[in-house]
Structures are given as C-alpha cells and as structure tokens.
C-alpha cells in the first residue's frame, strides 16, 4: 500500500493545532468572568490533540506525547476533590472557595481564585475522558 503524501494537511495542522491550543488555554482562564471554563477548554485541547493524531498517526504521536490519557482522568478528579478538601482543612464547609489578589510580574494585579484549581481538575478529567474514548475506539482493530 502506498502512502498518500499529505504535506498540506501536516503543515497546516502544525499551525492550526498551535492556535487551537492557545485558544483552549484562553478559554480555560476566561471562565470566571467570560464564557469559557474547564469543560470547554478541555474539549478544545482534546480537539487540538486529535487533529495532530489525524495528521501524524498514532505511532508518531505516541513518541511526541507519551501520555497515558487514562491516567489523566484520576489526576483531574483528585485535583477537583482536593480543592474541596482544602476548604475543610481551614475549617470551612466542603467545597468552600476563596480568592485573593496578587501582584504578578507581567499581568499586574490579578485575582487568583481556588475555583481555578477546581476548573483545572475538570479540564484534566475532560481531556482524559475525551482522549480515552476516541483513542480506544480508533485503536480497535480486532
């Protein structure tokens, strides 16, 4: 079987995947004050990764991105659960969130909330679940 030459697909993918990843991170951080958040950010990241999978194939991607996506799910869950437990340590009810203002180098005065950590957990869980579903089905050749 001869392989088709998909140079146009691969070249554009490198560019588009980069933009997609950037946009997904923007969406993830925008969630507090604008539409966005962990869920849509995670979906967008998985979309970028899947685009790369489609252009480069599974073998190449496993070399570039040696991540077991199935293990990402419990990592996300434990982060989300830990933000809830964090509230309990400070003697507040479960899942109590807090925030503070910090002077960051480039961004200036920024509001950092623990809700962001919860969102990070959601983000990782969504990426893990989506990638696991798609890669499991895609790998199924039996």
């Amino acid at each position: 079987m001869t392989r088709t030459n998909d140079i146009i697909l691969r070249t554009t993918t490198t560019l588009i995947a980069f933009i997609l990843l950037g946009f997904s991170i923007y969406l993830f951080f925008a969630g507090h004050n604008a539409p966005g958040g962990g869920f849509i950010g995670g979906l967008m990241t998985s979309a970028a990764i899947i685009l790369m999978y489609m252009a480069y194939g599974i073998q190449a991607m496993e070399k570039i991105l040696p991540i077991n996506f199935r293990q990402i799910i419990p990592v996300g869950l434990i982060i989300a659960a830990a933000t809830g437990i964090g509230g309990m340590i400070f003697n507040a009810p479960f899942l109590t969130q807090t925030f503070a203002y910090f002077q960051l180098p480039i961004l200036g005065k920024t509001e950092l909330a623990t809700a962001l950590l919860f969102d990070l957990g959601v983000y990782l869980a969504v990426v893990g679940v989506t990638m696991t579903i798609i890669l499991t089905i895609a790998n199924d050749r039996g």
Partner: protein
Amino acid sequence: MSNLTVLPILLPLVAGIIVAFIHKKTTLTRNLSKVFAVVNFLIVGWVFLHVKNQGTLVLEMGSWEAPFGIVLVGDLLAMTLVLTTNIIAVACVFFAPQSLTEKEESFYFYTFFFMLISGVSGAFLTGDLFNLFVFFEVLLMASYGLIVLGNGKAQLRESIKYVLINLFSSMLFVTTIAFLYSVVGTVNMAQAAQRVQEVEQQGVLTTIAILFFFVFATKAAVFPLYYWLPRPYISPNPVVSALFGALLTKVGVYSILRTFTLIFNHEVGLTHSLFIYLAALTMIFGVIGAISTNNIKLIVAYNIIPAVGFMLMGIGIFTEVSISGTIYYLVHDMIIKGVLFLLVGATAYVAGTSDLRKMSGLIHHYPVLGWLFFLASLVLAGIPPFSGFIGKLQLIRGGLGEEEIMIVLVALLSSLLILFSMIRIFIRGYWGDKIEIPVPEREKKGKKMALPAAALLTLSVLLGVGAEWFFPTIQSISQYIMDPEIYIDSVLKE
C-alpha cells in the same frame, strides 16, 4: 462539625480515585480496597452515632446559605441507610476476590465499586432534588460499568436494556425537576416543601408528584415498571448482583419515601391510595415471577420486587406505625438481599449451574453454605425471631389500623409464597441424593465465599433478635419523617 456529613460521599470517591491509579497491581488494589472499605465503614459508623446523639447535621456546601447553595442533610434516616450501605460494601469487597477473575479486578472493578458506594451515599444524604439526580447518575454510571465488566454475551444484551430504561427514566427525572422548578421556583427540598403548601394550583403539583413517582418507581421496580429488573440483575458477576440487589432499588424506595413524606403530602387521598394498589400488584407479580422459574439467581432477583411492594405499602398507608415498618423493612431488606445474592452466587458457583433441576444434594459437600441459605430464607420470609418479621409486623399493624384489609391479606399471602420460592431452592438444591461434587476445583473458593455472607447474615439475625435495641431508633426516625416541619426548620433555620 458539619463537614462530617460529606465524609460518606467523599471517602469512597477518594478511595475510588486512588485505586484507579494502581489498577494494574491487582493484589495491592484488592488489599487497599479492603482497608478503605473498612475504614469507611468505621468512620460512617462514628458519624452515625454522632447524628444519633446530637441530632441532624446540615452541611451547606461551599458556605452558601441553605436555599441558594447545595445542602447535605445528614438526618438519622439518611445516616442509617448510609451505614447499612457501607456494611454491605464491606461484605462485598471481601467477597469480590473470590468471585472475580484477576483480569476483571484489574479493569477498574474497585473504582466502579467505590463510585457506586459514593453515589448511593450521596443520593441518601442530599437535600436538593437536582443533586439527587446527579447522584443517581453517579451511581448509575458506575453500575453501567459494573454490569458489563467481564464482557459476556448475556451481559452485553442485558446491559443495553438496563442502560436504555435508566436513560429514559433519568431523562424524565430532569423534565420533572424542570416542571417543579417552574412551579415552585426552587430545587431545594426543604424550600420546595415549604412552597408546595403555598401554591394555589394544587392540580399541577399532583401531576408533578405522580411524574416523580413514575421516575422513582422505575428505579425501584414497582409493579408496571419492574419488567427491566430481573435479568439485568443476574447477568453480571455475583458480587455485582449483590450490590445492585441490595442498594439500587432501595435508593428509588428511599426517594419515594423522602419526596412523598416531605414535599408531596398535600393530596394523600389520591397519591397514597394509588401506592397501596400498586404495592399489592407489585407483591403479587413479584412472587409469581419468583415461583415461576427454576433459575436460582432469577428467583432471588424476582424476590426484590415483592420487597419493594412491602415498603411501598408502608408509605401508602402513611401512619407512624407503617412508616416505621417501611424503614425497618428497608434496612432489613438491604442486608438480606445482599446476603441472598452472595449465597446464591456461591451456590451457583459451586454447583457449576444456576438451574435448579440440575443440582442436588449439595448439603453433603457444603453444609455451611446450605444452612446459611436456609437461615437466610427464613429471615427473608419473616419467620418470628428474625428481622423480616418485625418490619412486616409493623406494616401489617399499620394496615389493620387504617382498615386496609386487602393489602394486609395480599402481604400475608405473598410472604407465604416468598418462603415457598426460597425454600424450594433449599429443598431441591441442597437436599436430595448425594451426587459427586460437581466442580471439585471450585471447592476451596466456594467455602471461602460463605464467610462474608455469614457475617452479613449474623447482622441480619441480630437485627431481628435484638429488635429491642434497634426499634426505638427506627421509631424516632418515623416520628421525624411524619413531621416534615423539623426537616424544613433544620435546613432553612428559621
């Protein structure tokens, strides 16, 4: 501190996540899960005692006040059921290594298991209807995972039915919550209960109440909606069947009990008399199923249905006595269904078949298993010193007090038929001619399987023999249930 209320949900959740990280190291996961389950049980037992002594614990999650945030209400009813859930979880986690293959264990069995426990505990503890839906989904998702675990042909077929019917009823659940939200403007149970009394259009609320009943009755397998239950419950591994039979339908019964004593108690004449008729039909059709088959697993699975009928009967009669009967029966039935599914699983395992016509004389090889089964049958049917008796006695007393003679007669008759259906397994399977030990290589494992079931059964016997210790607690729960103002005040703090 009120954070205690979240522990029964949080601990299994964290345990499930931790176990997911190391799912390939089977021995480690197995032992760690046992430790987690026992620790869980001890902590929940401690929280239960705390609630029993100090009264209801209300946790406003994320520090948001009651009607606006999510509340977890750890009252005595919820904590009793959570404690029972954890007792069954401990027995099942010790039974699991005997009946599961190593491959099945490594495919996230313990993660699904802990998620199921977490979902069930959450459904018992939540004080918010939409959260009840979410926890229903958590436990259903885990049960979807468990039902197909092992990859059998029958499992695949039955899981499709199971998933379809549960998706349909969940969809209806969301729709019904939307209806209730548009009428009363809240999904917090306490505030909904308060506002239901103020709404002028009572007709629409009755419609919503019946829709809720339809949803929960599908989950709990009440008469016209039980057709999905028996076969999906017997196709997975015995330990999964035990978890399902002990926990899942009871969450539906609990939801009916909670919503129809707290929120929808305005049109008792219509809704609760409907319950009585449906309870009678549930009992009749359940026992007919149980005596119609020769598959021992199916007999036990069909026996879930009349038990749901008994509990529904207590809710339908709606007096303090009958509600206490329902609660006692609920606790008793969770434990005994766990025992029966474990025992019947072990029996089918050692006999190499679940067809009653193909087994005989097992008592010569497995005396412990046989006598445990005999005892469990007596407990299930409600023979006096055991726990089934006290629940049924209270239900029948309640029924006679309200002069519901029909349901009392049906209940007594179906008890007899339940005993018949169970003792048939004992007589045909365990008595009879001694035959060669059917599958010799399974002898050792089969004997080990009896141990967790025996521990659960001891508890069940204790629940009956020591009824004097347990009954005052049950009675105070039933007084509490019959007076929804206490619940509303403890949540809304007015």
